[in-house]
């Protein structure tokens, strides 16, 4: 896996200061979106995917584990939250908690099965697990098969914030995203994150230093899955539906794409990547039949010309870590 992150620069205090500045700029930009005339639903959706991609990036960019089944966390949390809101009638905050917890639990179970596998085998076993889950969701009555769970009530968060108001919903999603992002950022730059990087770099050596590497990978996996689930729960309020597309392998593929387009192992790359891909889906929709071709060309160009991803290339040019 090392070739993926060959360009990672060592993190120095100055880098951390840079990153905090970029973060502040990003938060400020996002905060003023509703006043710019940009369509907030688009941004909300992109934010959910951005958080998802960041969670995924935590696992691959810093843990060296490429999960090809991350859609299962998104979808599971989505279904559970949707069901909780619609059928159990839970308030939004509890809906989010239940959904995220379901993703965490799923992380625990699937992590237990997959974490000991290496490299491509890890990717494939996560893919297999997510396909099994897809099958279960296709068959289970509560998901309503390919029709999905529709018309989910948004409700009032903490009984105060009316989520059916786009502006309120926007800020709730934004706060959720920023919180998730900060948690990921902190994890990366924590003592735990340091060990994770060491394991990614040279696992046998880490073992010989006395680290039980499986436990570290497991924690990273569960954290990543939980945050991906959190993104899935938030998304339910934005899309107001939960459907099979969220558990399909092509969604897992899209997560990988977002992260790669933005820059694997960079802090802000996944955010940028998610916005680019979502924007592409939205704006290319007008190109009709050529949409897949254009997407294909963009991916090819990304790999051949901007291998480090958009943010990765930028960081490389500036000799900064972003």
């Amino acid at each position: 896996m090392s070739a993926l992150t060959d360009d990672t620069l060592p993190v120095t205090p100055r880098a951390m200061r840079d990153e905090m500045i970029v973060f502040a700029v990003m938060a400020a930009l996002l905060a003023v979106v509703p006043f710019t005339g940009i369509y907030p639903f688009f941004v909300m959706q992109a934010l959910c995917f951005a958080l998802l991609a960041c969670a995924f990036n935590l696992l691959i960019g810093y843990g060296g584990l490429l999960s090809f089944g991350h859609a299962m966390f998104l979808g599971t949390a989505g279904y559970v939250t949707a069901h909780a809101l619609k059928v159990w009638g839970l308030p939004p905050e509890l809906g989010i908690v239940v959904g995220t917890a379901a993703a965490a639990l799923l992380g625990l179970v699937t992590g237990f099965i997959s974490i000991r596998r290496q490299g491509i085998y890890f990717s494939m076993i996560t893919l297999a697990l997510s396909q099994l889950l897809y099958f279960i969701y296709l068959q289970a009555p509560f998901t309503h098969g390919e029709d999905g769970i529709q018309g989910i009530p948004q409700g009032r968060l903490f009984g105060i914030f009316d989520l059916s108001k786009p502006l309120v919903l926007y800020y709730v999603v934004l706060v959720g995203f920023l919180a998730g992002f900060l948690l990921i950022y902190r994890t990366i730059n924590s003592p735990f994150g340091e060990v994770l990087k060491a394991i990614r770099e040279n696992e046998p050596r880490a073992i010989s230093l006395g680290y039980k590497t499986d436990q570290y990978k497991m924690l990273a996996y569960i954290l990543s899955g939980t945050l991906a689930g959190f993104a899935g729960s938030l998304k339910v309020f934005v899309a107001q539906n939960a459907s099979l597309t969220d558990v399909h392998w092509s969604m897992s593929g899209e997560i990988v794409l977002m992260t790669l387009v933005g820059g694997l192992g960079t802090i802000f790359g996944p955010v940028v990547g998610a916005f680019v891909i979502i924007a592409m889906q939205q704006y290319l929709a007008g190109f009709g039949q050529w949409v897949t071709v254009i997407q294909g060309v963009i991916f090819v160009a990304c790999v051949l010309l901007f291998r480090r991803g958009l943010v990765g290339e930028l960081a490389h040019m500036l000799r900064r870590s972003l």
Partner: protein
Amino acid sequence: MADEFILETSGLTKEFAGFFAVRDVALKVRRGSIHALIGPNGAGKTTCFNLLTKFLKPTGGQIRYKGQDITAMPPADVARLGLVRSFQISAVFPHLTALENVRVALQRQHGSSFDFWRSKTVLDRFNPRAHELLNDVGLSEFANTPAVEMPYGRKRALEIATTLALDPEMMLLDEPMAGMGHEDIDKIAALIKRISAKYTILMVEHNLSVVANLSDIITVLTRGQVLAEGNYADLSKDERVKEAYLGAGHG
């Protein structure tokens, strides 16, 4: 007295599909000594190390460390008991700086490694000790260099510094001098000599002058079995050792 030997094996055997890489080895390493393991290529020295540090499962035999049976213990636990190894092919964390390499080891020693909610600035308290260790192996100027960019010999030194950071009771060094220039060899030899006051060292080395100068006792392994044991002066007169390992012109 059990305490005299920090590490003891009996009947240690490793078989690879009918091929005995290590066979019935009884090894006793005295606390505080520098013990060398030598032998021709393919004699089973690295395999022995792998068995002792649990990177391989023995086919037979027993390993006792500080009086405790560790034959069935997982590798990370063995390391936690203070039995730490270096690798024959140099093992560093390539994209971490030298300082970070050492710090990862210090961090393990002092806990808090699962704290994903704390800032890594808490690790700064390990910096002084890390610098000290780098200084010991002559790497001060490389502290902020990523390990990939360091010359080969320096990587070996870094690996030793990392191992020392764990403050192990016993170190297993697999060809610590391989690929090093003379200056470095002398430096590392002096270092090993210095730390041996505190730690027990078991090492594999083909550089005879190093072996001769450093080791208190030497075990010669051939074809997976112990051929002889003794100090350098005695062994260099042993015909069997000459034939199997030293070759003509030594002694």
